[in-house]
């Protein structure tokens, strides 16, 4: 019992540190890539190639005064960023970052919690995350913030449906809700050479899920809740200092989580194709698989960033149209077709 708690705590600390450090790297990457796309230089003053810019930003956010507007509702105003960051970070509890690994004579799974409702847990935690934004908008007592909060709740409700439905196709193929078994199912090969990844078996589900993930993380082209030109800053207009920093952190942590979920469900998770035939020792193979997982997540994150700086923002009615009239029917059709093929 004591040993288990120790191991879980260690895993938890490692995962949290990795996520927080990756957020810093991600912010730096985003600024550099956006600068490259817009033919600017980007941050290049603090440290070599501006590498320490993100750290300078964090220090600035920590030292800034925390201002709460006079008419804001203080308890909820304080609670909102906590909900946001809590939901963003706790999704990672059920994501398998690698296969089993042998350390100090014991075999352990490389995930924090191995529960048999893994995927439902992810869906429910993401659906809780919307409260952070909605409540931030409401408690600021500011019309722009309120509009941002309202937009975000409408958007998340619309896209959660297609997200859930696109997962169903994957679940039907793997026949389990456990994320490690879903990954395990993808380690086979079709015809002896093509990895059995769900992206090849469920391309429609993959597309709908990725689009829904963009909407759920409030990234362009779906960043209507913060739309700077029309809403000033949206839900976080009235936030300063550390609390603003928490929202910022939550946005990037959400991106990392979404990328990790996409990798787990569609890109074979930690599976490194053909590596199991190389005759490596079990420990090296496990390490390579963790690296493969990180590499896949990084590719998706880069895709997120490049998309943000190449596409314009949707109009609000277009956003709703896509959600209800395109994504949802596509996801339902995908479930039907998958069911038919499985029966035949």
């Amino acid at each position, binding site marked *: 019992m004591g040993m288990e708690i120790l191991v879980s705590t260690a895993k938890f600390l490692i995962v949290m540190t990795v996520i927080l450090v990756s957020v810093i790297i991600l912010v730096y990457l985003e600024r550099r890539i956006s600068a490259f796309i817009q033919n600017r230089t980007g941050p290049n003053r603090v440290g070599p190639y501006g590498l320490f810019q993100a750290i300078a930003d964090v220090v600035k956010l920590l030292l800034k005064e925390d201002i709460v507007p006079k008419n804001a509702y203080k308890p909820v105003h304080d609670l909102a960023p906590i909900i946001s960051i809590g939901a963003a970070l706790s999704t990672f509890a059920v994501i398998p970052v690698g296969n089993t690994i042998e350390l100090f004579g014991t075999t352990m799974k490389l995930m924090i919690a191995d529960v048999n409702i893994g995927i*439902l847990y992810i869906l429910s935690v993401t659906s809780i995350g*919307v409260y952070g934004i909605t409540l931030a908008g409401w408690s600021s007592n500011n019309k722009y913030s309120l509009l941002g909060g309202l937009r975000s*709740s409408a958007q998340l409700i619309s896209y*959660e449906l297609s997200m859930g439905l696109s997962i169903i196709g994957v679940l039907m193929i793997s026949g389990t809700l456990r994320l490690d078994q879903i990954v395990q199912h993808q380690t086979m090969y079709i015809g002896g050479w093509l990895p059995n990844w769900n992206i090849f078996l469920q391309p429609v589900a993959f597309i709908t899920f990725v689009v829904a993930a963009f909407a759920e993380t409030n990234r362009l082209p779906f960043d209507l809740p913060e739309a700077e030109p029309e809403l000033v800053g949206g839900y976080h207009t009235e936030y300063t200092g550390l609390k603003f920093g928490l929202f910022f952190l939550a946005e990037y942590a959400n991106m990392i989580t979404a990328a990790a979920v996409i990798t787990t469900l569609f890109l074979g998770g930690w599976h490194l194709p053909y590596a199991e035939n190389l005759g490596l020792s079990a420990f090296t193979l496990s390490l390579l698989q963790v690296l493969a997982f990180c590499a896949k997540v990084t590719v998706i994150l880069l895709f997120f960033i490049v998309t943000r700086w190449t596409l314009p923002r949707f109009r609000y009615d277009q956003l709703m149209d896509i959600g209800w009239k395109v994504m949802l029917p596509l996801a339902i059709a995908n479930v039907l077709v998958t069911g038919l093929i499985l029966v035949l």
Partner: protein
Amino acid sequence: MTLETILFYALSFVSVGSALMMITRRSPVMSALYLILNFFALAGLYLTLHAQFIAVIQILVYAGAIMVLFLFVIMLLNLGDEKKLSEKMSYKKIIPAGLSFGLLMELLYIVSYAKSDLPLTHIERATEIGTVEYVGKALFTDFLFPFEVTSILLLAAIIGAVVLAKKKLD
């Protein structure tokens, strides 16, 4: 006291407390927030009963979807705080209060003096009953008819909502 007992009492305290806070708050948004807290405490209670599936569905459906819609509507209408009703003490208030108090006493009597004669047939399989596999099998075998009837009812409700929401039927 085992860990489960402590958890049970803590969660029960939170759920009853948040339910009380929910019905006594003036601001509709705060009421909604306490209701969400109540759902979380209930989900925790389900977990102590090994009903993982029900627990996660409680969060996913009630806290994650239905309450978001509630909050959305409350915020969209921008409802203000409820006015305090200054009613005089009347028989309309005293009689229900007396009846509720009587009911509470009866319930307390039953809970504290009754012997526990609950059937213990499923207790050895308690951990397995709460899983998704078990719930799914039960829904599609023993409870197929009620399940299908519920789905028809839901379909009728959806069609009804669409008809009501349409301004003109042409």
